């Protein structure tokens, strides 16, 4: 990837917490300018730790991070002013007002006051009516919006959203994604972690899967889905089966309770080992040989969620 296209570069990053726990293990990752990157991984995978190291909240054990070419430690000012962070945990100074806390964030990041910008941000997050409320009087979802507003107050080039949907209802979530899309249209790079895989599927350009501190894969979303996507062929039978004939043992088949439906899981890619008879033609031939008649058939592509689960379950 050309240097100009990379806005964030993580090189050989490892993190061992003081207790000895290895939370990140040799992470290498390039984020492209203007993309939405989704980081997926189970609880404890190291997502928040990775974001923490990039943003300066956690000391790395080794490796380095370049933000738009600036080392995040030796040139922390240039690096950090480009970054906005929405943390996973809801935290706030309970007694300050929405407007004040968002303006404070802008000042803290070294930007001169700009009430028009703050107003735009608050309006886009439907917080304008709440601007004079104390944070303690807001609901959890509203507090999360405030955290997003704080992160956007200084007009960052890169926005980190650590589990932005946690505790946010469907409507708020839709609004939030509209804001995220708007940001992307303006060229802001967005890196998010989420447990809602539909969200990654819907929003992200690229997806990284992290597990046990290791980056398992980074892939364009569509490539990922076609590469790893398994398909399921559902066959409706003329007559019910009680057991599967031995001749079908080689196929990944499952029979429904009533014996009328057969599900066949297969990979849609060409990279099948040729010695396994896992393909539709072979299955249909085998069924014909066993005198099993088919009344209807249907195929379904697995979702990112299925891919994710199968990846995360695989042993290293």
């Amino acid at each position, binding site marked *: 990837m050309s240097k100009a296209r990379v806005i964030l570069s993580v090189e050989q990053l490892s993190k061992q917490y003081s207790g000895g726990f290895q939370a990140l293990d040799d992470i290498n990752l390039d984020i492209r300018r203007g993309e939405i990157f989704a980081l997926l991984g189970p609880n404890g995978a190291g997502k928040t730790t990775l974001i923490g190291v990039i943003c300066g909240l956690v000391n790395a054990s080794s490796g380095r991070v370049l933000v738009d070419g600036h080392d995040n430690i030796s040139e922390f*000012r*240039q690096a950090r002013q480009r970054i906005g962070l929405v943390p996973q945990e809801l935290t706030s100074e309970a007694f300050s007002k929405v407007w*004040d806390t968002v303006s404070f964030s802008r000042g803290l990041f*070294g930007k001169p006051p700009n009430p028009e910008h703050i107003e735009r941000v608050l309006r886009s997050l439907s917080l304008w009516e709440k601007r004079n409320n104390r944070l303690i009087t807001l609901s959890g979802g509203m507090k999360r919006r405030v955290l997003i507003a704080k992160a956007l107050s200084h007009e960052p080039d890169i926005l980190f959203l650590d589990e932005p949907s946690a505790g946010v209802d469907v409507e708020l979530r839709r609004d939030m994604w509209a804001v995220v899309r708007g940001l992307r249209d303006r060229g802001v790079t967005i890196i998010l972690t989420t447990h809602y895989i539909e969200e990654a599927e819907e929003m992200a350009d690229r997806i990284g899967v992290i597990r046990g501190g290791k980056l398992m894969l980074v892939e364009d979303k569509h490539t990922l889905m076609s590469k790893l996507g398994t398909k399921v062929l559902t066959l409706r039978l003329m007559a019910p089966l009680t057991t599967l004939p031995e001749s079908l043992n080689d196929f990944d088949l499952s029979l429904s309770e009533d014996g009328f439906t057969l599900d066949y899981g297969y990979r849609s890619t060409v990279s099948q080992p040729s010695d396994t008879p896992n393909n539709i033609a072979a299955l249909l031939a085998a069924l014909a040989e066993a005198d099993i008649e088919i009344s209807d058939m249907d195929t379904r592509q697995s979702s990112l969620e299925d891919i994710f689960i199968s990846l995360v379950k695989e042993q290293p």
Partner: protein
Amino acid sequence: MNLQSVKALYHAEMARSLRTILQSVVSPVVSTSLYFVVFGSAIGSRINEVDGVSYAAFIVPGLIMLMLLTQSVSNASFGIFFPRFSGSIYEVLSAPISYVEVVLGYVGAAATKSTLLGLIVLGTASLFVPMHIEHPFIMLLFMVLTALTFSMLGFVIGIWADGFEKLQLVPLLIITPLTFLGGTFYSISMLPPFWQAVTLFNPVVYLVSGFRWSFYGNADVSIWASLSVVFLFLCISLALVAMIFRTGYRLKP
């Protein structure tokens, strides 16, 4: 220097203090007034002059110091402990702001607040005792330096503490005894020689003594010794703060 950021931190901290202005001002004013009623009027009327001033006037500088020390430590320690406790410290840590600037913002605000309180208590005291300050500039210098130094110490405590107990332990167990034994209510020349010698290891003696010198022109120890001790303390606190930030101690895992 990123002044915009320092200003933002400083203002936020001052605003936090202003939200609690009532207890910040009322409690030190009330407690000092009580000291004056009890020690200045009730007991003081039976005590002869100390070092050439009435007992009530004698205790004024010490009382202001007592208040200045405790307020500086508690303001600054709460100022940094609370965001650590609530987690909102993440924003400061991720901001393009250097450690020196963080300290300037937090410690500057805490020191400003306790200096203002010191002046208010001074004003309160002047209602009880007719007073004349011989070296007002030295007095102000002492106040500001002490406020800065002990705010810095409070900042360190606020970072070191991992619970509210520890946060209150240090002021209670160290600062208060040192101040009470630091010559606020007596001149160390009143002590037996052995205890006079021991007392000289108490840094607060130098603060109170120097501060009293700026009021009445005489003191237990020389003004230069007092000023040196204040500077020494300032340097120690600065070194502690620098070390904390270099290693990320208790701030960054």
